[in-house]
């Protein structure tokens, strides 16, 4: 079994599956916009100096941007 780590550690171009979200830290809007356990995400863009992260959600083919501070609470597995 692979070890899960937080989403912000992924590099641009890498893909991973969301395993868990720290639900006490994130509002339900994250779930509603498709960041759900089991969703496959691919990092598309990273703004410089710890700026926002742009990711593509494979199941719905949409691009979503979140802050790095929120990506810390999303755990993924490659």
């Amino acid at each position, binding site marked *: 079994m692979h070890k899960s780590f937080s989403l912000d550690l992924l590099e641009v171009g890498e893909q991973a599956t969301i395993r868990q979200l720290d639900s006490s830290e994130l509002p339900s809007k994250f779930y509603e916009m498709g960041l759900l356990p089991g969703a496959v995400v691919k990092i598309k863009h990273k703004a410089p100096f710890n700026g926002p992260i742009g990711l593509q959600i494979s199941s719905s083919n949409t691009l*979503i941007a979140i802050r790095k501070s929120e990506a810390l609470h999303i755990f993924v597995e490659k």
Partner: protein
Amino acid sequence: MKNPIIAFLGNPNVGKTSLFNRITKLHQHVGNYPGITVEKREGSVKANGKTYRIIDLPGTYTLFPTSMDEEIVYNVLADKKNPAHPDLVVVVAEPNNIKRSIVLYQQARELGVPAIFVVNMIDEVNAKGMDIDYQKLEAYLHTKVYTTDARNGKGIAQLIRAFDERPGYSPGKFEVGNAYKAALEEAKKAFPLHTEYQTWQFIAQENISFLTKEQQQTLAGIREKHQLSSNALQQAEAIERNIKIEEDLKAIILQKDNHHLHRTNKIDKVLLHPIWGYVIFFFLLFLVFQLVFILSEPIMDWIDENFSALIDYTAGVLPEGPLSDLLTQGVLAGIGGIIIFVPQIAILFLLISLMEETGYMSRVVFLMDRWLRPYGLNGKSVIPLMSGVGCAVPAIMAARNIENTKERLVTMLVTPFMTCSARLPIYVVLISLVIPNETFLGFGLQGLALNILYILGVVAALLSAAILNKIIKNQHKSFLIFELPSYKTPDWRNVGMNMWEKTSGFLFQAGKIILAMAIILWVLGNFGPNDKFSNAEEYVQQANPALSEEELNEEVASFRLEHSFLGYMGMGIEPLVRPLGYDWKMGIGLISSFAAREVFVGTMATVYSLGEEIDPDDDEERETLLSRMRSEINRNTGQPSYNLASGISLLLFYAFAMQCMSTIAIMKRETGSWKWTLIQTVMMTGIAYIVAFIAYQLLK
């Protein structure tokens, strides 16, 4: 019979507003929801033998609110007593995000609101690599599914014919998890008349504004007893619904490859590039300002000329007297002062709505968020702040793009610190008065001073944002999640509508207040409490019998102003402005520039009796004014009125003070409250006073 209300509900970027514009055409207006400031876009359409009221609800991903806009949506749909509560909801979806739209649709139906489902942008289904089995989808949603393309009008007629459908309550797909059943049963007893899902929403949300205090307490009690947090409930619902939809839709929608996203990803490689992305953004920004200034200049000159001509003509036609003066110098000059801003506002909003329509605006947020976050602002604050260099009025209006209520408020509060174009003529006059025309390290001191004033504006905006960020409470948790929509060619209908809405909003709403203030100032400057004002000629002639006619007229105008209400007000505030190094004449300048900063130069010209008409761009006229101002002695200190200390103090005062009734008017309109408008005025003028005071006391 009451006209049926049809509400459009959907995610952002699904073409909901295009659809709304298509259906209502020009029969629409923007108002406010009762008691709050979120804009309500409403229109009407005559069809099927009746008139429908159409409401374009703010775009939302869910019925659980995280912003003020989303709170409106929930209140309108869930509260049957809300005046905007619809008879039918039209849920608008886009093929790509259809799952999210289905969630929204199910939520609405389960609340007990009749709703139909529309798939918009139907022409893109193939390009997006999808195959939808509509029959199965209709069976799944228990409703007829309509397809439209708002850009070319496909399917619109069929949709309008469906406005009389009222699909009833649907028991729904959402099953409350076992962990929450006990709490739900308890809440159902407290709300026997509501649907089960409505009751669930009651437990899963805090602060539902349309419930009574007792009802809210009951709900809080239930949450506490069962140790539930509303956030956890909302997440449970999102997960449960999404798993189910994912499973159910496998048989209904076939998703292949998305060609649109390929193109979008390619463009984003450049526009979101860590270096080129910023280069392009700043170039675009530069271009926007150039266009706003270059394109609007000839129109503004034209308006200016024609208004002057109109004023001269009116003055010539009407018999001389106070009525003619009020009409020309008060009313017409006031209207002219409003209309002169229209070209800049229209062009700025044309360019901004183009950026929005194409999808570029979300990229700006992506690029800039990191740099503005430390100040409690949001990536989207860039547009208002940069526009503030032109004029704060359109800039404050541009803050509407910011969803988070607090970030939007902070942005609006600090935007007027940016050095707007109206400050420039004052800076030019004052700098040439008090800053020596010498060079320092090869830079002209005067130019350097001007640069510093611009930088001061930015610094003041950011610093005060950082402070306000600490003071103002956030009603909603601060987070950022937004969609980067695929790039599209703009829908010109939306661009046009948007431009018209913003411009007419300024013209008619803010215009009323500006006009009123202009008239008040005119009255104060043109009437006096005693005969020194009404018989000014005699007094002046007695004091200086040897004056030529031209000199006499100038002296009379100056004597009049001194003894007008405005003049007495200037002397009245003298004790207040003396610590800043000003005399009563400068006090008059300050009071009259409350109407608009640019009035300062004209008022100074009158006070120093040069006649009303002075063009600060005309070198010769400006020199005359400058030499008069240089030789002016402050009767309190015996020193020149405009020395380095008082000059710097005045410059700083103008840099920070709120002296623009157009801005005040637009703040009142945009925030919907006098409270924040007053706080802003007091904050800015207070900072101006303190800074000017310190500068004068240190330099004198």
